[in-house]
């Protein structure tokens, strides 16, 4: 048995799976104290069950996300080593930021050293300000972590925690690494408390099974391993829903996933059955980060979008003025249109009709025609956004002639729709997009199911510079010497070994280690017309997907078109 729990903003969904199939589901209100609803939900799920049969627990939590959104975070002393380049005024504006001397160039060669005296002075300042959490980030630290580590060594005694940039991502993007490091340090304390509580909770229930936390990339991480990198667990909510929908696909196709909520519709796309990741990382509360996350596009159209008629014609959203008129809301919504058209039945039909009538009067048409127009415009807007998203993915810049000419183009043939209005809009959306539309079964707990079945994912970046005889996998803190004849194949081999170790440490099981090379470049370095070395860049990942043993496509649901 697997227990999957998705702690959302309003509801906590919990599911119990047996033989990878849904056995039981519950929905309870989310409360301020996250653990109380957990206890309540699991008590219900386990009624009459043998807890010893439980193999694992997967939690998707809004803990870090909420802390950031509600600003319940720690003050962080940010120690930056930006060197020359972008003007400091263009970096993310964070409080308590201090710019250190020191400078690495793009090959990781030290041009200027860090000044120990400056750090001594900062220690005093941090003490006076009572700042106990630090973020240390240098430009191009991913090419050479030495300067960041030097600062860490000098400052660690002055803080409860210091997040170090190079451990959080191997990608190049200094401003994003600054934001990522800041957020990690800022939620470290509150998240650590959550980990302790969660561990106490399973202990209390007498469960002796691994506990996993869902990450933004739709993969899981063993809870103790997540404690130092809490920022990876932000925005795991949308990831849970996408993984839930992915569970309904056959696992190999190009497909579109739509989650139609009250205010917004989230669009995600699968390429050959793999959910797409954000190019650089997820964005939260205006902070652009390097956190691997599933790519979603959110548009301001949902079942409760306010409908207006004016000079520009019919306007659907992007604001939500309240629930549907049928449920006592203030104005007409797409949901009311669906009620009038007999595509949905909820709330008070009379109120829905009245709202549609008032809109019809503005439009100079009949109630039925107005409802039809609202319904069609809603579907048209969603379909247009889906098409834009697919075009954006297909037009993503590539940097080699090979990719330019041979690059895969997405051509989804199936559309998966979840959310309240899903059954009503799926057939029309399918027609507009030229896809077969599917509404998966148990869509209301797809998120918890998705979380329950997600496998552990990990990524790492190998950078080898044979001229400098050095190889680094900075996220893992690895810097080793290499011989001059070191090759791209050697880099892939070492990378795969280290990724395997990393994934196992994070809680993966051997059979789920589907490792793939996602970036692979080797450049001859020529100086004065002769080869002086090779510059090798390899990125590997464990693909987002499901734990092994699951039978693919078992929960297909209704094909609507």
């Amino acid at each position, binding site marked *: 048995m697997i227990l999957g729990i998705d702690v959302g903003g309003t509801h906590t969904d919990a599911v119990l799976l047996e033989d990878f199939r849904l056995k039981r589901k519950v929905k309870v209100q989310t409360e301020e104290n996250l653990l109380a609803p957990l206890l309540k939900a699991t008590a219900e799920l386990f009624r009459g069950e043998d807890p010893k049969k439980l193999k694992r627990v997967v939690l998707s939590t809004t803990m870090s996300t909420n802390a950031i959104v509600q600003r319940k975070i720690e003050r962080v002393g940010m120690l930056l080593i930006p060197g020359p380049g972008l003007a400091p005024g263009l970096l993310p504006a964070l409080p308590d930021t201090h710019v250190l001397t020191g400078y690495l160039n793009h090959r990781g060669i030290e041009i200027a050293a860090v000044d120990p005296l400056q750090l001594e002075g900062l220690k005093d300042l941090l003490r006076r300000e009572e700042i106990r959490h630090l973020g240390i980030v240098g430009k191009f630290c991913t090419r050479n972590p030495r300067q960041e580590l030097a600062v860490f060594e000098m400052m660690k005694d002055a803080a409860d925690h210091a997040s170090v940039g190079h451990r959080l991502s191997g*990608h190049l993007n200094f*401003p994003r690494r600054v934001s990522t490091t800041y957020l990690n340090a800022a939620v470290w304390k509150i998240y650590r408390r959550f980990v302790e509580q969660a561990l106490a909770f399973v202990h209390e229930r007498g469960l002796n099974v691994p506990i996993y936390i869902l990450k933004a990339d739709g993969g899981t991480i063993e809870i103790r391993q997540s404690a130092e990198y809490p920022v990876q667990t932000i925005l795991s909510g949308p990831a849970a829903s996408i993984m839930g929908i992915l569970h309904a696909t056959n696992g190999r196709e190009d497909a579109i996933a739509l989650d139609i909520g009250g205010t917004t519709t989230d669009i995600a796309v699968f390429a050959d059955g793999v959910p797409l990741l954000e190019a650089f990382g997820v964005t939260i509360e205006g902070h652009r980060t390097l956190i691997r996350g599933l790519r979603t596009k959110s548009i301001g159209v949902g079942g409760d979008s306010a409908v207006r008629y004016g000079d520009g014609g019919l306007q659907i959203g992007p604001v939500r003025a309240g629930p549907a008129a049928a449920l006592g809301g203030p104005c007409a919504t797409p949901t009311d249109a669906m009620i009038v058209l007999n595509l949905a039945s909820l709330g008070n039909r009379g109120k829905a009709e009245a709202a549609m009538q008032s809109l019809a009067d503005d439009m100079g048409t009949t109630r039925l025609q107005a409802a039809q127009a609202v319904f069609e415009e809603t579907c048209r807007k969603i379909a247009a956004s889906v098409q834009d998203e697919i075009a954006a993915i297909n037009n993503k*810049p590539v940097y080699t002639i090979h990719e330019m000419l041979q690059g895969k183009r997405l051509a989804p043939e199936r559309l998966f729709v979840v959310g309240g209005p899903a059954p009503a809009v799926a057939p029309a959306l399918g027609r507009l997009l030229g896809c077969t539309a599917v509404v998966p079964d148990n869509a209301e707990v797809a998120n918890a199911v998705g979380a329950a079945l997600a496998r552990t994912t990990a990524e790492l970046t190998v950078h080898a510079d044979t001229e400098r005889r050095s190889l680094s996998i900075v996220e893992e803190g690895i810097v080793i010497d290499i011989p001059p004849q070191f090759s791209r194949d050697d880099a892939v081999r070492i990378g795969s070994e280290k990724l395997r170790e990393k994934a196992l440490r994070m809680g993966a099981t051997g059979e789920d280690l589907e490792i793939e090379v996602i970036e692979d470049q080797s450049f001859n370095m020529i100086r004065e017309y002769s080869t002086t070395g090779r510059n090798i860049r390899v990125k590997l990942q464990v693909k987002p997907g499901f734990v092994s043993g699951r039978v693919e496509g078992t929960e297909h649901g209704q094909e609507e078109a």
Partner: protein
Amino acid sequence: MDKRKRRTGLVFFPAFDWAISPSHPEREERLLYTQDQVFEEGLLDFDNIIEYKPGLATCAQIDRAHICVPDAAGVVTESHLISAGGAITAADKVMKKEVDNAFALVRPPGHHAMLVVHGARGFCNVNIEAIMIEHIRTQYGVRKIAVIDTDCHHGDGTQDIYWNDPDTLCISIHQDGRTLYPGTGFRDEFGGPNALGATLNVPLPPRTSDEGFLYVLDNVILPILGEFQPEIVINSAGQDNHYTDPITNMRFSAQGYALLNEKLAPDIAVLEGGYSIEKALPYVNVGIILAMAGLDYSAVREPDYDPPSLRQSDQIRREIEAESQAVLELWQRREELKDKVAGDARYVKRKKQIYYDTDGIREYQEETVRICSDCGGLVMIDSIADTGNRIYAVILPRRVCRVCRENGEGIYERIQKGQYRHIYFQDKDNDVFRVRP
């Protein structure tokens, strides 16, 4: 620093899988460190910097700018179609007002490719700016365009293509041709008889620094642009004037490049040469992108940047001032010079020997221009290369006058196949390209 933010399009195509040969300066590694710097600085995250995927140029687009022997498909590889396509994408985004300006950071370059193409010269097969310019004119009806070639090498290809076009102002600033490839680009090359002054060259002495480049910009380029009033300004943006470039001798810096682009404010910049791939390109490109986007570039500098050691001598300063003054005077006298150049002749001939250093081809060419006061003038080209290919081309300019058209069409009909492998007819006015085999 208070600057006006602009929306800047970036077409980045480093062609990480293409090289002229493994150890050639124009190789896979060339934009690798530029990519690293651009990514690490987070430039693609700015809301006003938008990255676009390049399109693929077509042979029909190349045929508007070139006479390719035997044909366009025969002289290019996919890489050229992508770099020309990248320039076209940059232009489209600007012309459709999706962005205020755009930078095509693409390779391979193009500014040494001339009107007739028998092969590759100066690392260039086809002229990506010219292909872009012809696209802009065909697609958007733009007439007056200025190309400011800031590559360290004379933009001889672009000059050759627009030699007889009074509507395309080509100003090239470069290291003196007596000291550097391609050995041309002197002040006395200032356009064909119907387009005098539309080609201008400002050769600069070796070791010219930021001060010298900016002097020419302020005292020659900007005033002449003010008079010419182009609808579109293009920077043919080579980066080999940098003080670390291995194959040139200038002392320009990343700060200088950024300031030049801020002042010139090109609508479109297209990367040309620049082979100091580690020490210059990462910083110069970041500087140019920030300057075009109207963002603060004051903190961009090379690791070994030391302004006092890069200062130009007084002697160089005086030479630059004198050259600038002479070029300005030439520009001001462009109308009266026409009589002197053409006299009573009805046609003017120009003989050229062109060496294709990259492919080792030698070409002999005779160009004949009809002296015309109503249009750019009919052009006829007789070209033979030591590959054995000899071709003849009749070219009608845009807004061709009736007489030039009738003459040109007549010549194309009458010319005997004889020893010519192909006879070409490029009618720019009607966007027609014909080849008689």
